């Protein structure tokens, strides 16, 4: 059974990039343009991993993580946040809110796949 990954990022090019790479490696991909949009996907369907950007309009990464952890069905779903060096404080916030891990931008595909394998298998 292939794993499903929910990608949340307000940048279309990043969403597309990630989707292409992940589908190539056999993952099923769902997309959200920001936190609020992503929440719509939390409707009981199987989601094995969420990868989210931190800074997004309407609902940002931390907000999304809090929503995910509040939801019974997804309380233990792993969440990876995409971070940049200038966002150390946000990364801490994300961790406290319940993020599982992080990967730095720019995203190197091989590294991303490695980290994903650490978290879901």
């Amino acid at each position, binding site marked *: 059974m292939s794993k499903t990954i929910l990608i949340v990022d307000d*940048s279309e*090019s*990043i969403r597309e*990039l990630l989707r*292409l790479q992940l589908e*190539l490696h056999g993952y099923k991909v769902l997309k959200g343009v920001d936190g609020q949009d992503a929440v719509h996907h939390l409707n009981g369907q199987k989601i094995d991993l969420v990868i989210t950007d931190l*800074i997004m309009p309407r609902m940002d990464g931390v907000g999304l993580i809090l929503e995910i*952890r509040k939801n019974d069905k997804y*309380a*233990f*779903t*792993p*969440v990876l946040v995409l971070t*940049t*060096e*200038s966002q150390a404080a946000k990364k801490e916030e994300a*961790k406290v809110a*319940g*993020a*599982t*891990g*992080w990967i730095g*931008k*720019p995203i*190197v*595909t*091989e590294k991303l796949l490695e980290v994903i394998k*650490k*978290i879901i*298998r």
Partner: protein
Amino acid sequence: MDNLKAIFMAEAAELIADIERALLQLEQDQQNKEGIQSIFRAMHTLKGSASMFGFDTVSTLTHHLESIYESIRDGKNQLSTTILSTTFKGLDHLQKLIDDPTMENEGVQQNHALLLKEIINLEQEQHQDIAKNGVALLTVPVSVEEVTTYYIYFLPPSTIAHNGTNALYLVEDLLNLGDAVAIPFFNNLPSFEELAPDASYIGFELVLSTSKTEKDIRDVFMFVEGECELTIVKIAAGNVLADQAVQTKLLGEQNLDAPKGVEKIKDILTASAPALAQSSQATGKAAQAVSSIRVSSERLDELMNLVSELVTTQARLSLFAGQETSNEVATIAENVEKITRRLRDNAFSMCLIPVENLVVRFSRLVRDLSTELKKDISFKTEGTDTEIDKSVIEKLTDPILHLLRNCIDHGIELPAERRKKGKPAQGTILLKSYYSGANVIIQIIDDGAGIDLGKVKKKAISRGLIAEGAELSEKELLDLIFLPGFSTADQLTGVSGRGVGMDVVKRNIADIRGEIELNTKAGEGTTFTIKLPLTLSIIDGLLVRIKETDFIIPLVVVDKCYEVETTLLTQAFNQWVTLDGERIPFLFLRNEFSIYENPPVLSQVIKVAYEGRVIGLAVDRIIGQYQAVLKPLGQLYHNQNECSGATILGDGSVALVLDTAKLINKLFIKTKPMEYEPAN
């Protein structure tokens, strides 16, 4: 026959290098039996193959050297500085002999006779004076894969699952690092009524034998390290778990109520494995040699060329597949791209050589030169496992040798002078290398006399490089040193001070697209810093377009992309734009590149970060990610600043690769151009 000879010559060169390395180690630690033995063995091998291939002169000389070391090994003789010096001379001569075995060259002939006499003399003497310590040199660690056994204690917090982490995956990752046995402990397990189904109560103790480093082990815990109790202790060199009996003993432990602790585990291990080698350093003798084969560099070059061509052709395939409607073609094209990327990374790693390969040569230079100039210098290295592309390493050798010569000649003072200044008599030169972002940094740091800025200024004035009363900052003064014909040496020592040095060094480094910087403190020392781009000739880039010209921005520096109304950019005050609430400076590339016609309504701003500085680059469109094979623009574009090269796109046209570092520096460094007036 020529082919076999070539193989012998290559092997001989390696043997000689091994002996040289061992000698340098021996100089620091003259009692090291292992060193003597390995030198003897290498000489024995060299002697044997030399005579097989008809290199009789080599064989004879080596034979005599070998007997000296044999007698030292057997305790009949003592190692001395004289023996060491003669052996060094012998090695240098042997290398020459291999290139000229019949001694056509007269110099070689004469040297041979002298050397032979010297060696035979030493051979026949029964006792040598125990010499004082020669120049102390640090050992050059031979890089071979070593297995170490660790004890790991790991207790995750009870809430670990609330972050979506599965603690068992962590244990699994550890088990995959090598041979391992995991023993859980349950003392945190509460009674059934108090058990929370989403909490974690189990901890693990592991014995892991692995060739990975401690850092690799810690990396397994990278997301949870702060929250867990984690202890990693080296307990032995070598693979303790190789013995099945040991594994069985560990697995047979019945009592799992509480963690045993590292001492108890060690006891269990020693009880079942009597030959447990204990050492506080992990440089164990139970080393596993990495199996390797020798490949000619022409083959490697050809491999690289083919890989580059493959990348370009694959780009065309992807372009084609994108235009076809067949899903299958698209899938195949994506697969080809994936495999090509892996092939490229693999091929590149083959061309990378650790800096350490150069260290022996440098150690030798430091040793010989400091002896000649009667200075006491310790040569240390750090980070020599840093790898650099082999073509770059070749071009680095000369500049670094020159910098080291300068250091020894002008930098480090004579022992008496140092003591007067309250410094230790022994000076230190540190060769440090490490990665920083997309660069490799190599530093040569000495604790010598530093550079006298006053002298520099005087010299510059006398050479007409600056005006009499010119006011220059420290950096500007130091930069003068890199001008041709400049030298502050009062006398020309045979070594440096000829004034042909620093400008050539700077140029050589510029040729490999590197930079060199100099920092100094009078009386305390000088640091040269060389910064080199990781010359991977294929980079992952972001393909963007301005009007009809395509550009590549290296993905390594790209942070995020934004869409911005062009008018906001053209009318921006002071070249700032606000992205995600942050005000950052930006470059409107259309202006930079003088492309003025028909800007689009919406521009794309790409936020790039480099060494902590962030700027935005505004372009018309972003096309997508692209694997770019870097091609040089050529001599004619030598002075080109904004582009570091070009690449061929899938449709055959040429895209320019932007040098983001230079573009960023434009916005951040505003130096006044120096006005030189010739002194009349």
